[in-house]
């Protein structure tokens, strides 16, 4: 599936420990999503919630190649990217709940979570905007002479906006250590991929920037891992950016509450049959990488952590009124 400029040939394979690690992240994301939908449905939290269900594999396999001090820029649909990168559950949930204990004291909310310590440096609500800023972060790493890399996550719809084009061109001209990871879930809000995108594979757009571009099965952790591994290595080595298109599906509509009528029922059913979480789980067991008991134990532990984070968030305080006018500038204003 690689396009003109080949990628995917020097790929490393994820070893058993790495595969288990990827699964742990996927399960975390999946269970967290279930909890989030439940809490929102119950009305205990008021937030716009963009479920990443179905896309667990992508950031989990990408992040298995990253260090804590590597950075990601993600989007409103980003809890999977954040959790995979290591944003702690408590502060994530508290931020989603708008509480003062959240990553951003509740001022950012789910669409603008930032947690520098884990490298989750930017979450944007503007389609396409993760990419230009990822370039700048990567430019800094390059200037520092470090081997740190930056991941810019974005959707298929975002590949049609101007910022995508400007960013990939600059990243290539400046050879920045950035990896553009397009999570192609086949829909942009209510619009089918084909109705808005004039190319059959987004990875082909890499040709416009003389950049390696590759399309991978976004539900296959090993494929995503291998593509990301190659791209990350290239970026660390100063060889510049890569465009990875990971094809996946969005199980729960665009935003919580969405009625899904615009989706092709058969397409959706087929995609849900390929749910990456149970498939990878079964594979790990079948290949003897983990036992049913081991996985169940991991999952149970995650469930406890999530429940505890939800409780932490719900029981935390709202930010005090003085927070309204704080953080506009470094020097506080009246």
């Amino acid at each position, binding site marked *: 599936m690689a396009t003109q400029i080949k990628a995917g040939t020097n790929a490393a394979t994820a070893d058993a420990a790495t595969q288990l690690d990827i699964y742990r992240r996927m399960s975390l994301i999946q269970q967290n999503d279930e909890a989030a939908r439940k809490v929102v449905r119950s009305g205990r939290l*008021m*937030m*716009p919630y963009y479920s990443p269900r179905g896309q667990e594999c992508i950031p989990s396999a990408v992040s298995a190649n990253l260090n804590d001090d590597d950075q990601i820029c993600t989007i409103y649909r980003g809890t999977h990217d954040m959790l995979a990168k290591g944003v702690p559950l408590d502060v994530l949930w508290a931020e989603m709940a*708008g*509480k*003062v204990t959240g990553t951003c*004291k*509740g*001022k*950012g*909310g*789910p*669409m*603008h979570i930032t947690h520098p310590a884990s490298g989750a440096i930017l979450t*944007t*609500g*503007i*389609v*396409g905007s993760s990419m230009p800023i990822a370039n700048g972060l990567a430019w800094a790493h390059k200037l520092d002479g470090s081997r740190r890399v930056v991941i810019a996550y974005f959707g298929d*719809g*975002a590949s*049609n*906006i*101007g*910022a995508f084009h400007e960013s990939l061109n600059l990243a290539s001209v400046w050879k920045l250590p950035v990896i553009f990871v397009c999570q192609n879930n086949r829909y*942009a*809000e*209510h*619009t089918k991929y084909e*109705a*808005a*995108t004039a190319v059959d594979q987004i990875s082909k757009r890499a040709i416009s920037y003389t950049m390696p571009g590759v399309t991978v099965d976004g539900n296959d952790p090993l494929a995503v891992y291998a593509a990301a591994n190659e791209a990350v290595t290239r970026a660390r080595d100063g060889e510049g950016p890569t465009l990875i298109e990971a094809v996946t599906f969005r199980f729960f509509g665009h935003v919580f509450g969405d*009625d899904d*009528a*615009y989706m092709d029922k058969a397409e959706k059913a087929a995609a849900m049959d390929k749910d990456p979480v149970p498939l990878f789980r079964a594979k790990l067991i079948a290949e003897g990488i983990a036992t049913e008991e081991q996985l169940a134990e991991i999952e149970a532990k995650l469930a406890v952590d999530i429940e505890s984070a939800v409780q932490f968030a719900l029981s935390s*305080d*709202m*930010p*005090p*009124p003085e*927070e*309204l*006018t704080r953080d*506009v500038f470094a020097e506080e*204003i009246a």
Partner: protein
Amino acid sequence: MANRSKITIIQAINEAIAQAMAADDKILVLGEDVADREGGGVVGVTRGLSTRFGDDRVRSTPIAEQAIMGAAIGAAINGYKPVAEIMLMNFTTVAMDMIVNHAAKLRYMSGGQTTVPIVIRMMTGAGIASGGQHSDFLEAWFAHTAGIKVVAPTNAADAKGLMLSAIADPDPVMFIECSRAYGNSCEVPEVGEPIPIGKASVVQEGTDVTIVSYSEIFQRAIAAAKELEKDGVSVELIDLRTIAPWDRETVIASVRKTGRAVIAHEAVRQFGVGAEIAATLQEDLWGELKAPVKRLGAPYTSVPFSQGLEPLFIVSVQQIVEAARATIGTAAAPVAMGIN
């Protein structure tokens, strides 16, 4: 249907566009997810239009606001009248060149040869937990831009009438819809009548203080007026409806009568629309004001997400009441004497 029930702003705008499209086949609709295959708009404002008027006239677009605005501008130059949706007002930031350097200027720069009769529909507003990048009222930017009109209705009847005028207008019109107000309903004529752009509505006459507002904040102004009435304060309530060009005559006539004015809007107070109105009033009504003109708007911050903070961001009924009271409590001070 003499007896149909009240309709919401969403429905009112939908009816206005449909009415205009039925009368004039040059009217087009474009934007992200506006066609029925894509659900007829994320909140349903354009629902049913593509089914009724065809996929050629109602087109969903890629997520590419410059391309959306360019398509609208070009089609308008060539004789069509596109109603373009930029889903949320904050997304105008990716299309400002098309709106400001092109749509607003082409008539002028071409010496009147090319014209851009487009409507740009957008929703916005805090109070629904959308956070810092989805909630801004930016009407002051466009009011400061020569060549583009700005409209912001507060109720369904005005929304319908103003949309009809916006579509008929030979120049670009920004049409601001407040998400919080979408569900508000009132009686709306089934066959809409255009409400002129540039005309404010004196919703209630009064003698003590004039409250000027628009969009959803005007609903709060109504509530404030009720509250003030309990104290025996007689409020003149003006719904500006059009921000640019704003109805100076109506506002000035009212404040000339009451001698006091409070202006309230959702946008950040600093350098907001209220400043222009206050600056105009102090000049045009020199010596006729009984109190300084009061301005209310959001604090100088981004829109916070937290439910603990977001309600504090939006001008409240109480703030309007207090500002009005303050204008009345202000002792009339003598003007210092001039030197000649």
